[in-house]
């Protein structure tokens, strides 16, 4: 066999080798990407997400309950029920969910209800969760926090028109987890002669919703004194109740 003939066969052999290299590389990359996006992993991560989401719902439900007059112990009770429901689920093996209510200041039994007179009201519930999944090929150990906080911030001032006639302008900012949030309902009242009054019955009453969690109110009435105490009682869209009071000064 001549050298030229061998060269031709070597060319075909080289082409085959290159083809094999390309195909094997492509197959390897393909298999790797398939393994990463495998269905089992997708279902498992969705399952973990569902537990995390459910835990958050439990914290919200507990805060709704307690902020509307329920017993503080309901929070722990709801978490215990949720833990035991999760423990009975064996889709991905043994599921151990443990919740610890926040105890550091200002929380007590996982709750912080501060409906103060300094222009700020807070309704909050917080718990730390640890989730451990084991068996059926899944081993997951993770922790996450469930903190739900509704905050009401009150600010404003009044203008005296002569005597005790005052035009009051007051603003409520509602926040969920520190972000502006819409209210389900708001009740505004002002203190006059040791009694809370509803300004919405006044002809001068106006309300403006800026659509971003800020609500502006204005009304005029005869109110004795150098300050006008106002009180907001609000429910956010989750029906968490929060209250805040402020003593407005002349602006």
């Amino acid at each position: 066999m001549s050298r030229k003939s061998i060269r031709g066969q070597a060319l075909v052999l080289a082409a085959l080798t290159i083809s094999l290299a390309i195909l094997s590389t492509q197959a390897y990359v393909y298999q790797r990407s398939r393994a990463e996006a495998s269905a089992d992993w997708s279902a498992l991560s969705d399952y973990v997400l569902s537990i995390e989401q459910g835990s958050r719902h439990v914290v919200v439900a507990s805060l709704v309950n307690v902020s509307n007059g329920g017993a503080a112990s309901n929070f722990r009770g709801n978490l215990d029920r949720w833990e035991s429901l999760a423990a009975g689920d064996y889709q991905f093996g043994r599921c151990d969910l443990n919740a610890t209510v926040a105890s550091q200041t200002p929380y007590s039994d996982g709750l912080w209800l501060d409906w103060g007179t300094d222009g700020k009201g807070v309704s909050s519930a917080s718990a730390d969760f640890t989730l451990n999944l084991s068996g059926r090929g899944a081993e997951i150990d993770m922790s996450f926090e469930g903190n739900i906080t509704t905050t009401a911030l009150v600010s404003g001032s009044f203008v005296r028109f002569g005597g005790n006639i005052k035009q009051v302008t007051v603003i409520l900012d509602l926040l969920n987890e520190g972000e502006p949030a819409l209210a389900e309902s708001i009740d505004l009242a002002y203190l006059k002669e040791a009694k809370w009054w509803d300004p919405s019955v006044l002809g001068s009453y106006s309300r403006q919703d800026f659509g971003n969690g800020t609500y502006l109110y204005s009304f005029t009435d005869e109110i004795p004194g150098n300050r006008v105490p106002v009180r907001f009682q609000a429910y956010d869209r989750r029906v968490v109740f929060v209250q805040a009071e402020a003593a407005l000064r002349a602006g």
Partner: protein
Amino acid sequence: MIKSRRGAVHTLEAFMAAVIIFTTLLYAAAMPRERDRPMERPLEAVGMGALLTLDGNGTLGRLIEAESWESIELCLRASLPAGVSFNLTVLDETGAPVNDRPISNGGLVGRDVESVEYLLAVESGSCPLYRLRLQLGG
């Protein structure tokens, strides 16, 4: 004459080599396209994803509390891919069925049948807890 034949053979060999390389490249380029076919996502993941989305803003819990089984059925019809049949059973904490009518798009049909369980907490004062059993066929 021999030289001419050799030249023809070399041309043929070069052509073969080019065909091999070209075919390989063509096949290699086509391979990843098959990866994300919808059928590769199993029913289990499809069902869990649908329930997770519906529960994201608390809609699913509110509908169950309101016993709006028809609305839940419509939501599932919209969330699940066409061609996937489903049957949802809502169980309370004790495991007793809550829905008094089937939440289904007409029975389970398909070669594969999968079942997904979803734990649900409702954002309302009494914090009701449910276990949803979603059977899927496709």
